[in-house]
């Protein structure tokens, strides 16, 4: 391919009420990043295009945009890769999602900064500095808990594609909760409970829908989603009660008592009798569609070899505190799929 089309979101509230798209024809050059393409369009065709950038090396986090619908740093992706990935001759560039656009690809980060302030994204020491005058220290196991979370460059990619933020701007968002986790999980930090209380206001921490967009988008492998879950684990350990915590308890009990989740009795246990009454229209609907197993109201059936499950769960709870689970083997490790069926097909 000799040329490609860069379709850029354009918006200038001082001139037009509505945004529009403008397309620029550019040569395909090996190694050209999307940011370089934006520069080429601006310098040679249209000086009015606005976009943010600084380091050009995926460090500063200024140039996050939506590329064919998915957030990433403009300086981190190459044109040839994008054209191949989407099997297209057109790359659509839009500002990050879930945020107020100021002009073209430039958006208002104040909104995110205000959220960040709520969780106090700075170190609040638990103790005075060590008497030997050296810095605060922690052991390697404690450090690995916050190592990846500390790599966040606040680029907004995760916030852009967050499904919960898409429908409710009051959600703190993955970047903010992940940043809170970085301090909540820090063995040297003294404001753990205060920060947990903040992220748990109105159970905000549990508005996350586990869609994993944030972790998929993050250009620095910070794993915001995993950090949200790790924060929930810490909140449970610290004794905070929440709908999510009750939900987890119901699952644990059902696995212990019968193996599979008893969906029929879930609403009553989750929200009490009154809450369950609210679900009556839903329940009746499910009943008339043949989706309700009456036996489950009386406990239902158990999985086979169920006694094994109780034995191992008892033992697991007994051993829990002795086991140190590292947060991840290595951030670049990926699941290696060894499916037999897949292999068979490749061989044949």
């Amino acid at each position: 391919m000799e040329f490609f089309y860069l379709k850029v979101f354009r918006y200038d509230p001082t001139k037009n009420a509505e945004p529009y798209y403008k397309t620029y024809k550019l040569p395909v050059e090996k190694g050209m990043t999307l940011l370089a393409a934006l520069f080429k369009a601006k310098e040679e065709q249209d000086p009015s295009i606005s976009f943010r950038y600084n380091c050009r090396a995926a460090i500063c986090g200024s140039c996050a945009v939506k590329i064919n619908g998915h957030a990433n740093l403009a300086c981190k992706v190459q044109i040839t890769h994008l054209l191949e990935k989407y099997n297209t001759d057109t790359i659509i560039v839009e500002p990050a999602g879930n945020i107020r656009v100021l002009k073209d690809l430039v958006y208002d980060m104040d909104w995110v900064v205000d959220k960040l302030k709520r969780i106090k994204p700075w170190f609040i020491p638990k103790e005075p500095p060590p008497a030997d005058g050296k810095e605060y220290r922690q052991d390697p196991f404690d450090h690995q808990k916050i190592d990846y979370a500390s790599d966040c460059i606040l680029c907004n990619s995760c916030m852009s594609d967050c499904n919960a933020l898409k429908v409710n701007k009051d959600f703190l968002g993955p970047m903010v909760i992940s940043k809170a986790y970085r301090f909540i999980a820090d063995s040297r930090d003294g404001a753990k409970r205060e920060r947990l209380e903040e992220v748990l206001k109105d159970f905000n921490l549990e508005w996350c829908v586990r869609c994993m967009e944030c972790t998929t988008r993050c250009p620095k492998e910070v794993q915001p989603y995993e950090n949200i879950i790790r924060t929930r684990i810490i909140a449970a350990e610290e004794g905070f009660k929440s709908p999510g915590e009750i939900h987890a308890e119901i699952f644990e009990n059902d696995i212990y008592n019968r193996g599979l989740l008893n969906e029929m009795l879930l609403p009553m246990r989750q929200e009490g009798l009154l809450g369950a009454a609210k679900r009556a229209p839903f329940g009746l609907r499910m009943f008339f569609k043949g989706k309700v197993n009456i036996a489950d109201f009386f406990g239902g059936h158990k999985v086979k070899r169920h006694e094994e499950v109780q034995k191992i769960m008892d033992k697991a709870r007994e051993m829990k505190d002795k086991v140190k689970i590292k947060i991840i083997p290595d951030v670049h490790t990926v699941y290696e799929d060894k499916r037999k069926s897949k292999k068979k097909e490749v061989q044949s």
Partner: protein
Amino acid sequence: MKYAFYTGCSAKGVAPELYDSTKLVAEKLGMELIELEAATCCGAGAVQEKDEFLSLVINARNLALAEELGLDMLTICNTCTLMLREAKFKLDHDPEVRAAVNEVLKESGLEYKGTIEVTHFLWEVIDAVGLDKIKEMVVRPLKEFKIAPFYGCHIIRPPYLTGYEDPDNPTSIERLIEALGGTPVDHDARLACCGFHSFWSAEDKVTLRLTAMDTQAAKKEKADFMVTPCPLCHTQLDAMQPEAEEKIGVNIGMPVLHLPQLIGLAIGLKPKELGLHKHVISTKAIIEKVA
């Protein structure tokens, strides 16, 4: 094609039509399913966010049950797929945790060895059965239908655990729809989230808003119905659609099919056998058309 069949809770609970249609379609496609009747719930992300070690133990046991049979584990739920793969990933890469988990499993005479794979029905239909064979088996092409794929999060994200296809531009369901003679519809919610997993914490604030947005996106593109490989997405988009409609005050009425039901219709199984009458949003228009 023989698999250790992990049903998950939904197929044994609120989505019996998924269980039935999977069994019927698998048999027709020549996939032998040995049901893991001793398997438990995968924790669904709920146990995982309270007691990580316990969730690893439970899923190491589930995986060990498939290892006993020496068969890859076939799942029919996106979240089960991801939870089992996540557990496997951690057990395979952290020898200390694996040793601790095996110490627990010893109580019941089991051991996690890491010898089998966790796969999803969709992936096996494409890779093991193959779209060419599917095409040959089609007796009732779905040519009059515009079908909106809804992947569901946990079969495409996060890529370091799923890895089957590009999470930014997956094509498996579209390719399958085309093989069945249908027309895939591109829509804004193709890769979006149904909202299921925050239901009990943010039903009004997040979940139902997403459900409404997703089903409306399919409707906007004039899809006849949506199709999903995940029963949790299905429960959310189908059974909870009336709540979502009420929430936004708009009638949507978008039917949602399970993936095996879609295949079943095209390879000549009856809508009734596939349980299409068990859906909350009426599938009458689809049933009439295929009759």
